[in-house]
């Protein structure tokens, strides 16, 4: 402690010096304190300004819990998140197949966003029967399609099953029309890709022809594809089954057309991965998924991905995602999604066909946007040719038979 004592002695004069400056903090100390604080404030301000959330720290952000399937692409989009933050909303997503959403307890959520009407009807029906809050918003639609690779599309074309559609601005067609009847005929006859002559296009595949979809017991795209398959395979029967018996026999007659073994989740992401051609060469997808992919590919690489192409089934099935708010917090978001111009524009940029307040597809905004981004505009017919979905009760019956899973508990009015 000798050194310590000595230092005390030496220190004395300096105390006076410090007293002369302002208070007990030297200017240097003050600066040392202030610099990091200042830097932080500036960085923070800059960050907030850039992200458009300048006022955020001063207003509470409401975190909404939502459960959904493929429409999470919308809420996971950076731009959508930014727009929502401006409205002090942040969304926390739980992923699940759309039908899975309808089948399970959703009490913990502020909203659900199943990808199509059947699951939406299930949910609103059950909520209504229980006298609980549910309000539906229908912001946009997207047709169901089959995403595939050039070699596969061209093989189908050779076999007279697919025909190229005009794809302005692309060297080779990006879009094809798929004759569903002929496609299913090939599956029915147990044809393999090799049988259709895919080797002429430089690859071999001894697997049977099938369009891979997620689990039909969980997903809307797979359920819609089932509706498409059973509509195409109806023979002399009515467009859609109208009795339980018809639904059962229709399901049994198409089950083999959808046999793919254990289904995989997230087939579209697998499809766009570098290994997609081997793992998921033909997948059931929504048009918006494919268009978003091409727009992004074009933006990032300056060219289209002409290896990945889209097949539009000859009978068009348009899916209509159902934003269902389960409380007023959720409803505020539902209102925004359907009416906020920025969110509507962004939905369109993500490849959705947005709906006007009357529920009609709003003009040709998507076409204009795609043209701007140098992505060919798919030539689609108007909505009047939309094919009919079976009533939920019959679709449910078909799903449970094809997917070998329990039937959803339907509220009385849907029975």
């Amino acid at each position, binding site marked *: 402690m000798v*050194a310590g004592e000595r*230092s005390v002695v*030496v*220190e004395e*004069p*300096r105390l006076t010096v410090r007293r002369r400056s302002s208070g*007990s*903090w*030297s200017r*240097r*100390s*003050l600066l*040392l*304190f*202030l*610099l*990091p*604080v200042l830097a*932080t404030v500036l960085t*923070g301000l800059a960050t907030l300004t850039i992200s458009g959330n300048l006022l955020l*720290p001063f207003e509470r952000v409401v975190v909404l819990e939502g459960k959904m399937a493929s429409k999470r692409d919308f809420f996971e989009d950076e731009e959508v998140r930014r727009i929502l933050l401006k409205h002090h909303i942040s969304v*926390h997503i*739980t*992923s*699940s197949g759309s039908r*899975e959403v309808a*089948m*399970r307890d959703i009490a913990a959520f502020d909203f659900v966003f199943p990808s199509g009407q059947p699951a939406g009807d299930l949910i609103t029906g059950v909520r209504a029967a229980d006298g609980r809050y549910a309000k539906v918003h229908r912001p946009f639609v997207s047709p169901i399609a089959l995403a595939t690779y050039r070699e596969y599309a061209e093989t189908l074309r050779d076999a007279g099953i697919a025909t190229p559609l005009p794809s302005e601005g692309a060297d080779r067609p990006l879009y094809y029309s798929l004759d569903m009847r002929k496609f299913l005929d090939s599956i029915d006859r*147990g044809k*393999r890709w090799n049988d259709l002559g895919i080797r002429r296009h430089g690859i*071999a*595949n*001894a*697997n*049977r022809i*099938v369009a891979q979809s997620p689990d039909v*017991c969980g997903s809307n795209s797979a359920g819609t594809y089932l509706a498409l398959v059973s509509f195409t395979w109806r023979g002399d029967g009515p467009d859609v089954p109208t009795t339980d018996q018809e639904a059962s026999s229709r399901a049994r007659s198409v089950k083999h057309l959808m*046999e*793919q*073994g*254990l*289904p*995989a*989740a*997230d087939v579209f*992401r697998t499809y*766009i*991965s*570098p*290994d*997609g*051609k*081997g*793992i*998921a*060469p033909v997948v059931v997808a929504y048009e918006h998924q494919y268009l978003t992919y091409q727009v992004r590919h074009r933006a*990032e690489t300056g060219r289209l991905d002409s290896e990945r192409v889209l097949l539009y089934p000859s009978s068009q099935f348009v899916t209509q995602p159902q934003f269902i708010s389960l409380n007023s917090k959720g409803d505020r978001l539902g209102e925004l999604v359907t009416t906020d111009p920025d969110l509507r524009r962004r939905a369109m940029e993500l490849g959705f066909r947005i709906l006007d307040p009357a529920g009609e597809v709003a003009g040709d905004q998507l076409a204009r946007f795609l043209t701007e981004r140098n992505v060919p505009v798919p030539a689609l017919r108007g909505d009047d040719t939309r094919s009919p979905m079976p009533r939920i009760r019959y679709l449910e019956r078909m799903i449970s038979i094809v997917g*070998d*899973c*329990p039937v959803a508990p339907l509220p009385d009015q849907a029975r």
Partner: protein
Amino acid sequence: MTGPGRPRPPRRRRALTALALAWLAVLATLASCTSDSPEPVTLRVLASSELADMEPLFDDLRRDTGITLEMEYQGTVEATASLAAGRYRHDLAWLSSSRPFQLLLRKHGRQTESPLSTSTMRSPVVVGLKPEVAQRLRRAAPDGQLSWADLADAAAAGTLKYAMADPRSSNSGLSALVGVATAAAATGGALRPEDVSCDRLRGFFAGHKLTVDSSGGLAGAYARAEGGLDALITYESELLALNRAGTLRAPLEIVYPKDGIVLSDYPLMLLDPARRDAYDRLTAWLRSEAVQRKIMERTLRRPITPDLPRIPSLRTPLGNALYFPDDQAVVDRLLADYAAARSGGPARVLFLLDFSTSMRGERIANLRATFDGLGGADDSRSGKFARFHQGETLTVLRFGGRVLDEQSVTYGKAGDLERLRGFVADDGFATSTAVWSALDHAYRSAADALAKDSRQRVSIVLMTDGENNAGMSLDTFLGRYAALPPAARAVRTYTVRYGDSDPRELDRAARATGGHMADATGQSLLNAFKEIRGCHE
């Protein structure tokens, strides 16, 4: 004022205090306004053994997210069984594949919601071959591309000895088993129960010389036993890692069988919903570009994120993925066949062959060609799977009005198949046909064989081209069969209808023993023989 060397601590101390305080203030602000502040949390994870190679990334994980993973390793199948029981003891499960789990959920009618699940990376189960072995096998393949059928063929012939993890406990073993069985069935679709009613993999199993319970320990076990082996069947990532480690005498050549592969996608599953926040942080971290790149570089698994550029060794096209069966009964059957091949006794087939005069000429030529085909000359895919295999004992009983001779050989080397050919090369033919007396004789031989070694898996193949015109009647035979000791009675007879034989009697006899009849009047004799190889009913 202060002498040189004199310390000036108070002033510096104050400055330092100011600085520290300032940074504390900053940190406090940051912590309060950042939503994903790394709040330390420990998650208990039930993991597949091969995921031990993720541990080097865990320090980064703790630093970036505050999450510590407490891993408990098990074989995937064992881990699945504990999940299916529904009593979760862990916060998360991280398995190489959730397929076994999905199959169990399906089996139980899918009444429960499956846990939230996120794929984290990918790796196919493929074959690592010693370069000289790959070269040798490729020379025999017409297009130079190897298939599971080529490997099964070589394994049956004893020229391919491989290591593979036990499919009863490990996912890599199960994936390989499903892959090779799907290739053998060659339906182009997912296996159904009717596709696996006969075991076509006995030849393939004959080459399985090294096994361990879990995929994790397999590469090391292979490296230690390298000298006596030709191939290692496991994840692409394990093979690449083994090659990179440079511990092998020669790196293994990776073959993606052209008839298809099975991939694993390492799903991370949330078992305790209360841990949702941490789970979200963990999956977001795992799927972030930086971490996906690290995973790819360290573990050599393929990234799950579509647009991450691949390292060169992971740019090889995989070929086509096979459809995975959606029925637990299929997997159960395959595993039972595997178990029988591992621990059941040696296989013995008694061929009861009609050598009456009507067989002379083209028919006997066809029979000899059939034995050549089953001996390895049949180049078709089904031929490669159904051929005679190492360790199998083949007994030929030639008969006419009585059993003319009975000769046996246990296939161990190529010369043994020469001897077998000699058994059917005999040109002595008999004038009458005593089908049922001969079958009765065959059952006595079977009973003798079983008395010597009760573990043997014995079956009888009866081929005749004419009606019974000597010896006992079918009814007499069936009466005597019913009186056999249980072990002999359990031996199934498969009958091959050829020429002018009586299909009703042949079918009845086969069914009485639990077997069935194959018809060689509408297809080649070889195909009829292949059809009943390895059948269970």
